[in-house]
C-alpha cells in the first residue's frame, strides 16, 4: 500500500501530543520522586541525580519507536496477527509463573539478559486486539450478546487475568477484566446477562473475599477506616493522603515535597507518583494532569467514531477504556476513595514495560485514525 498524502493530512497530532505530554510530564515528576542529591552516578559524563527519571527517558525513546511500529501496522495486519500475538503473550505469562524473577514478593518479570520485561503489560494490548477481532467477526445478535456468545470472550479475558492474579498482580488482572468487560458492553449485552452476572458477583463475593491475601483484605478494610492501623495496612494510604493534601493550592515546590524527599510516601516512583506531583505542584499541577488524561481519553474516544470498521472502533475503545480505567483507579487509590490495589498511573508511573506497551497501543490508535479515509 502506497503512502497516501491524505494519511499525513489526517494525522492526529493532538493525540500524539497528548500521548507524549503525559510521559514527559511524568519524567519531570519522576526526577523529583527519584531524586538523590548525593548520587555520584554518571552516564556518558553526565551526572545522574535521578536514576528512575533517566531510565524512564530511555524507555520513552524506546516507547516512541514502539509507537511508530504500532502506527505503521495496518488494521488488516493487526487483525491477522491478533490471535498469534495473544498466544505469544499468554505463553509469556505462563513462562513468568515458571521462570519469572521475584521482586517484592511477586513473580512478574521475565529476564532477557540485559533487561527484564513484564509480560502482563503487553498482554493488555494483546487482549484488546484479540477480543476486537473475535467480536468484530462474530454474527452479532440484535438484542445484544447472550450467555452463549460470552463463553469464548470470557475465556479470552479470564485466562490472562487468572495468570496475572497468580503472580500475584491483582491490579493488572482487574484492569484486563475491566477493559474486556467495557469492550463487551460496547458491543451490547442483554440485560438478563448483566443482571445474572451482578447476582452471581454478589454471591461469589464472600468466597472471593476469603480467598484474598490478608494484605489485600486489609487494604480494602483500611479504605473505610484508614486510621485503624496507621503503621500497618493504612500506612500507604495515610501517607499518600498527607502528601496530596499538604500540597495545597500551589504545592511545596519542585524537589521540596517533604513526604516524597524524606521517603514517608511509599512507592513514590510507581503507584503513588501522583502524590508526588500533588505534593510538590499542588492543586494546579494535579488539575493539569487530570485535564491532560481527560484530553487523552477524549482524543482516543474520538477515534472510535472516526472509523467505520468495527475492529478499529473496538481497538480504539479498548485503548481508551484501558487508559481511563488505569487513571481513575490509580487516582482513586492515591486519594483514598478506592482500595490500594497496585494499579499504576498510565505512562506516568515509572516502568518500561508499561510505558512502551501503552505507547505501542496508542500508536495503533494513531494509525487507525490516520488511515480512516484510506479505503
Amino acid at each position, binding site marked *: 500500500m502506497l503512502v497516501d498524502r491524505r494519511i499525513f493530512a489526517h494525522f492526529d497530532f493532538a493525540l500524539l501530543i497528548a500521548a507524549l505530554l503525559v510521559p514527559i510530564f511524568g519524567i519531570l515528576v519522576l526526577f523529583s520522586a527519584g531524586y538523590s542529591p548525593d548520587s555520584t552516578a554518571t552516564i556518558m559524563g553526565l551526572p545522574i541525580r535521578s536514576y528512575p527519571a533517566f531510565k524512564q527517558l530511555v524507555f520513552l525513546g524506546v516507547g516512541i519507536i514502539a509507537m511508530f511500529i504500532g502506527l505503521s501496522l495496518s488494521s488488516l495486519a493487526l487483525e491477522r496477527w491478533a490471535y498469534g500475538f495473544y498466544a505469544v503473550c499468554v505463553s509469556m505469562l505462563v513462562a513468568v509463573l515458571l521462570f519469572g524473577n521475584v521482586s517484592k514478593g511477586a513473580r512478574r518479570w521475565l529476564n532477557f539478559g540485559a533487561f527484564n520485561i513484564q509480560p502482563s503489560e503487553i498482554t493488555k494490548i494483546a487482549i484488546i486486539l484479540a477480543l476486537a477481532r473475535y467480536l468484530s467477526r462474530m454474527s452479532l445478535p440484535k438484542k445484544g450478546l447472550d450467555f452463549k456468545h460470552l463463553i469464548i470472550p470470557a475465556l479470552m479475558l479470564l485466562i490472562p487475568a487468572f495468570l496475572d492474579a497468580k503472580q500475584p498482580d491483582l491490579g493488572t488482572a482487574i484492569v484486563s477484566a475491566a477493559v474486556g468487560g467495557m469492550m463487551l458492553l460496547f458491543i451490547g449485552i442483554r440485560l438478563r446477562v448483566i443482571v445474572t452476572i451482578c447476582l452471581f458477583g454478589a454471591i461469589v463475593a464472600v468466597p472471593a473475599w476469603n480467598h484474598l491475601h490478608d494484605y489485600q483484605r486489609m487494604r480494602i478494610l483500611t479504605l473505610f477506616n484508614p486510621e485503624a492501623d496507621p503503621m500497618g495496612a493504612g500506612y500507604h494510604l495515610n501517607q499518600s493522603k498527607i502528601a496530596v493534601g499538604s500540597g*495545597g493550592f500551589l504545592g511545596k515546590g519542585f524537589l521540596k515535597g*517533604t513526604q516524597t524527599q524524606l521517603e514517608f510516601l511509599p512507592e513514590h516512583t510507581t503507584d503513588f507518583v501522583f502524590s508526588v506531583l500533588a505534593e510538590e505542584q499542588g492543586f494546579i499541577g494535579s*488539575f493539569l494532569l487530570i485535564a491532560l488524561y481527560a484530553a487523552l481519553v*477524549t482524543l482516543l474516544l474520538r477515534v472510535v467514531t472516526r472509523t467505520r470498521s468495527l475492529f478499529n472502533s473496538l481497538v480504539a475503545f479498548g485503548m481508551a477504556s484501558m487508559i481511563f480505567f488505569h487513571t481513575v483507579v490509580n487516582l482513586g487509590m492515591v486519594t483514598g476513595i478506592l482500595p490500594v490495589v497496585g494499579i499504576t498511573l498510565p505512562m506516568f508511573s515509572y516502568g518500561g514495560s508499561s510505558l512502551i506497551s501503552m505507547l505501542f497501543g496508542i500508536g495503533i490508535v494513531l494509525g487507525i485514525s490516520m488511515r480512516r479515509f484510506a479505503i
Partner: protein
Amino acid sequence: MSRQTSFERAGININLRVQLAFLALAIFFTMVLVRVWYLQIVKGDYFRALSENNRIRVVYVPPERGVIYDRNAEILAKNRPSFNIELVIEDVPDITATLAKLEQILSLESGSLGIKNRYQNKRKPFEARLILRDVSRDMVAKVAARKFELPGVIVGVVPARDYIHGPIAAHVLGYIREITRSQLSSERYSRYLQGEVVGQYGLEDRYEEMLQGIRGLQRVEVNARGTRIGESSFEPERAGNNLFLTLDLDVQRAADQAFENSKGAIVAMHVETGEILALSSSATFDPNIFSSEVSSKVWNDLAYGKDKKLTNRALQGAYPPGSVFKIFMAIAALAEGVVSVKETVFCPGFYRFAGRDYRCHKKSGHGSVDLNAAVAQSCDVYFYLVGQRLGVDRIHTWATQFGLGLPTGLTLGNENAGLVPSSAWKARRFKRKEDQKWYPGETLSVAIGQGAVTSTPIQIARGIAAVVNGGRVLQPWIVKKVVSSDGTVIDEMSKAKVETKVSVDPKILEIVKNTMVSVVADPRGTGHRARLELFPDIKVGGKTGTSQVVSAKYYGQREEFEDHAWFAGFAPADKPEIVVAALVEHGGHGGAAAAPKVKSVMQAYFMKQYQQFGKPMPVSSPVAKPKDEGPVSD
C-alpha cells in the same frame, strides 16, 4: 476491499455508546478532581500540619540535674554519661535471633533480654526501644565491635546520677529513677514525660522541682527511617539548681561508718542553729544501683526486707527513749518543784507502788541518790518517784515543750511524730471505757521513757539541744543554699529557726546540763565511753538510754529481744556546738553500744574544726587506748 465489519452493518449505534463513554469520563474525572480539591484546598492546612508532624520530630534534651554538695562544697551527687543498649525494631530482621545473639555476645543468660514495653503505645516509627540500661563500657565495646552481626542494635547515651561516695548519706540524698505510671497521672508530675527520671526518695524527691532543671527542646527534621536530616529549631535546656547542704561529708561518713553490721540511726545537729551535720540510718543502700535495672528481688529486699534498708530510722524510727527521757523528767521535776536538787532518795533496787515492785535496772540498788547521781547513774527508782509526784499530764506538757511527740519539720519529710502519752491521749486512743482510764502505774513506765512513749533520733537530738542552748527548740534544717547553674543564689537559709522557747528558769537547764556532764565525766557515769580521747580538753555531756523491747523473761535470748541502745550527747560542755543522738536497734546497753558511736562522730566533727580553723588541738598521738571501761549498766 475490507473484510472487516463496519458497525453500521453490525447495527451498533456508535455515537450513543461514545456519548455514554464521555459521560462516564466526565463523571469519574470530576469525582477525582473534587476529591483532590477536597484534600488539597478544603483540608490542605490539616494535611500540611500532618506532613510537618511527620517531618519534624521533637527531641527532648534532658537537662543536667543539679549537683548536691555538702557544707564545704564537697560533691555528694553529680551526673555521668550512661550507656543504654537499644533496638530499632524496623531495622531488625529477626528480633528473637538478634536478642539471642546479643545475649551470647554479652555473655548473658539466655532469654534474659526483652524489649521494655514502656514505649509500646506512643512509639514513633524507627524510635529506639530500650533493651539494657546503664551497661558498662566493656559491654558497649563488645556491641560496637560486632555491630554488623547486630542490625538495629544501637547504643544510646543518657545522663545518670553518680553518688560518688556510694552509700554515704544515702537516706538523705535518696535516689532517682524513671517516673512511674501513677506518678505520671498525679498533679505533681503533670509537666513530666514518660521515660523521664525523677527523684524518688530523700532530697532527690523533696527538692525534685529545684534539681530537675528545664528540658531542652530540639526540633529535628527526620526522614521516614527516623534518620536526622537537619535541625530546625532549638530551645536549650537549663540545668537544675545545685543544692548546698548543711551536712559535713566527714562527719556524715563517721556516722555512717559507726554502724558496721548493726542497725540504727545517728543525728548530728548544730546546737545553736539547728543545722544537720550528719544524718545516718542503717541498714543502708547504695543509691547508684538505681541507675541500672533493679530486679524485683533486690527491690523487695530494699523496701520490704528484714533490714528495711529504705527506712530512714533517724526520722521514721520511733523507739522508746528509755533513760534519755529522764533529762526532760529532771527539768520538769525541778521546774514544777516536786524535788529539790539536794533531795536524796534511797534506791533499794526496786520501787514499791500499789502492791507491786517496779525494778531499778541495778538490782542491788543505788543507795541514796540526789538528782545529779540519779541522772549520772540513771537510777530508775528516783524517777519512779518523780514521775509519781508529777503525774502523766505534767510529764506530757514538759516533754512536748521540748518537741517530743511532735514532728521536727525537717524538709526531708515523712517523719514519725513519736508519742508522748497523756490521760487525754489515752481517752482518745481507746474505744472501750475501761481501756480509756489512765493508771498511775503506767506513769511510772513513762517516767523512765518506757511504756507508750516513743521518740525518733532527730527529736531526741533537738530536745537535748534545747536543754543545752537555753531552751530554744529549733527546727532542724539540711539544705543551706539553692544556687542556680549560673551561680545565682535562689534560696539561702542562714539563721536558726526557733520553733518554740521553753519557759523555764535557765538555772534549771544549767543544773540538768551539768548532770549530763557527770554522766560522761564521772567514772561511775553510764556514758563514760563517750569521752573524746582525741580531744581530752573537750568535755562531753550526754545521757544514755536502754529501752526494753519486750518483757525481761525473753531478755538476751534472741537479738530481736535485745534492748535498744541510746546515747544523746553534746560538746563542748562549757559552750555546746554539736549535739549527737545515736540509736542502736537491739544494741544492748546505751553506754556500751551507742556512746562510742557518738564519740566517733564528735571526734570527726572536732577534727574537721581543727583542719579548718586550727583549733581545737587534738592530742598528738591518739593511740593510747583509754583504760576505762566505765559501767555499762544503765
